[in-house]
């Protein structure tokens, strides 16, 4: 007999298979973050508290996760169009498992991308604090499960309108990115922008990942980041499960 866990495992391993077979697809999707790393990072001035790279690289790890995970709904969209999603809806797989399994898979490309970014930047003077970095990846795992689930929800909502999926994804992506202070610090921004930034859950995730990557584990920043990532994970999954349940209602 099947259980929620076995159903989730079935969906998860099915999603993971193409990624494992073709790992370069994961790296290909990081092209933009890598360009920012190569062409934008050198423009940053060294500030007092450490090298610019030390500040910028964790942000790029988040950016890479953001780009890849927010676009992942396109895979579901494609399967809605070709018919395999329908086939899975007729199977006894539990509806929540259909989205939880998919969302959990987002952790894997995120880990691969983070490793690639770190490996690339180490020769250029990036200092890795392993313990903190591992914790940062846990925070990002929570975040990517939630964001992935939201991306799948968007795919379910857009259904046959592929352009709508990309329009919404692109429209939300850049404000989220800029307001989270990934490319430039928000500290000296005008008040309204700082307020907007404080409303963005990604801001707390980025801040936490930054301090964690620099080896600082016990701080309020980390606490807020974990909280924000957990909230995104829980809310994302909640919305996603609801959306998946409603597709056959």
């Amino acid at each position, binding site marked *: 007999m099947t259980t929620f866990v076995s159903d989730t495992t079935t969906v998860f391993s099915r999603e993971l298979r193409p990624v494992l077979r073709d790992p370069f697809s994961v790296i290909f999707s990081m092209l933009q973050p890598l360009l920012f790393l190569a062409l934008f990072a050198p423009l940053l001035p060294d500030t007092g508290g450490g090298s610019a790279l030390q500040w910028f690289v964790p942000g790029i790890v988040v950016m890479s996760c953001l780009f890849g995970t927010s676009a992942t709904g396109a895979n579901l969209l494609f399967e809605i169009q070709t*018919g*395999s999603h329908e086939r899975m809806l007729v199977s006894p797989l539990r509806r929540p498992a259909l989205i939880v399994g998919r969302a959990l898979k987002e952790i894997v490309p995120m880990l691969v991308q983070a490793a690639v970014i770190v490996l690339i930047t180490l020769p250029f003077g990036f200092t890795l604090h392993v313990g903190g970095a591992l914790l940062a990846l846990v925070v990002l795992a929570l975040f990517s499960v939630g964001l992935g689930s939201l991306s799948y929800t968007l795919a379910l909502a857009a259904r046959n309108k592929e352009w709508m999926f990309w329009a919404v994804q692109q429209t939300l992506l850049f404000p989220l990115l800029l307001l989270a202070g990934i490319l430039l610090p928000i500290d000296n921004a005008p008040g309204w922008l700082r307020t907007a930034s404080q409303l963005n859950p990604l801001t707390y995730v980025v801040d936490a990942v930054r301090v964690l990557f620099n080896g600082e584990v016990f701080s309020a920043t980390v606490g807020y980041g974990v909280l924000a990532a957990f909230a995104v994970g829980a809310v994302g999954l909640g919305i996603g499960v609801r959306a998946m349940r409603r597709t056959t209602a």
Partner: protein
Amino acid sequence: MTSTMIRTRGLTRHFTVKRQTVEAVKGLDLSVAEGELVALLGPNGAGKSTTLRMLTTLLRPTSGTAEVAGHDVIRDPRGVRNRIGYIGQGNGAGHSQRARDELISQGRAYGMSVRAARSRAAELVASLDLEAVADRVVSTLSGGQRRRLDIAMGLIHAPELLFLDEPSTGLDPQNRANLAEHIRRLRAERGTTMVLTTHYLEEADQLAERVVVIDHGRIIADDTPARLKSAHAGDRIVLEFDHDDEARRAQARGLGIAEGAVAVREGNRLELRLDGGARLAPKLLRSFDEAHLPVASVEVARPTLDDVFLNLTGRSLREEGTGTADAEESAA
């Protein structure tokens, strides 16, 4: 002894399209017994796909009930899903996956062990002639190969009831024949109950033992293809004359001989619909000859299911319907 596989009572589905309510399926009462092979026939938008989607738990009925394989589609959808197989209009296997992997993961979805799923997948790969492509990525398979893979996906758990939604759409004649062959074999070997939708008359005629004709969301006829044809469509005698005037006179004379026939004249062409056309044709020809109405050509045709549909609705199945196909698409 046969038990009922499907029983619907007043099954109804409405869609709201542009603030208008479209009744895609209206109070359907349908029973299918174990082991039957039933075709739901109707033009695009007749409501057959909507019906199928409700029976397979993809769509919730607006009202009415449906019990499928012993489980209620609303109260116990997982119970239904566990016992049915479904081959949809699209490809069941994900295009970025390998064929065999998809078969195994489909088996896992139905609660089979990895080992059982693997051996069942190998069995289906062999019987559906997919050995050469089983370890390839689905997107590299040809249309016919993908369709065979779809069938394998639908059969992984050896369901007792199988639904097929427009199974032969997009297939070339050879692959269509191949599909029909698989369907027949499945019935012969396992006695699987099958319900398929189609708008191909030949398919319904050749495959199904029972044809349920659906139009505008209602069942308008339900019988074997042979009985439908004898009950709802006579033979057709098509006569051509050299002049329109001769055709006109022949029409009056022909109706006098063939009682209850329906005559349609277009220029010099006269079409008579009647029962026992093959037997009446020589008599008609003799009579026209006596009246100095030389017949240029004659053709006697047995009725098709299209004639049945035409007779029942006044429209031909071959003219693509204007019904609620769009509504189904956007709201489903």
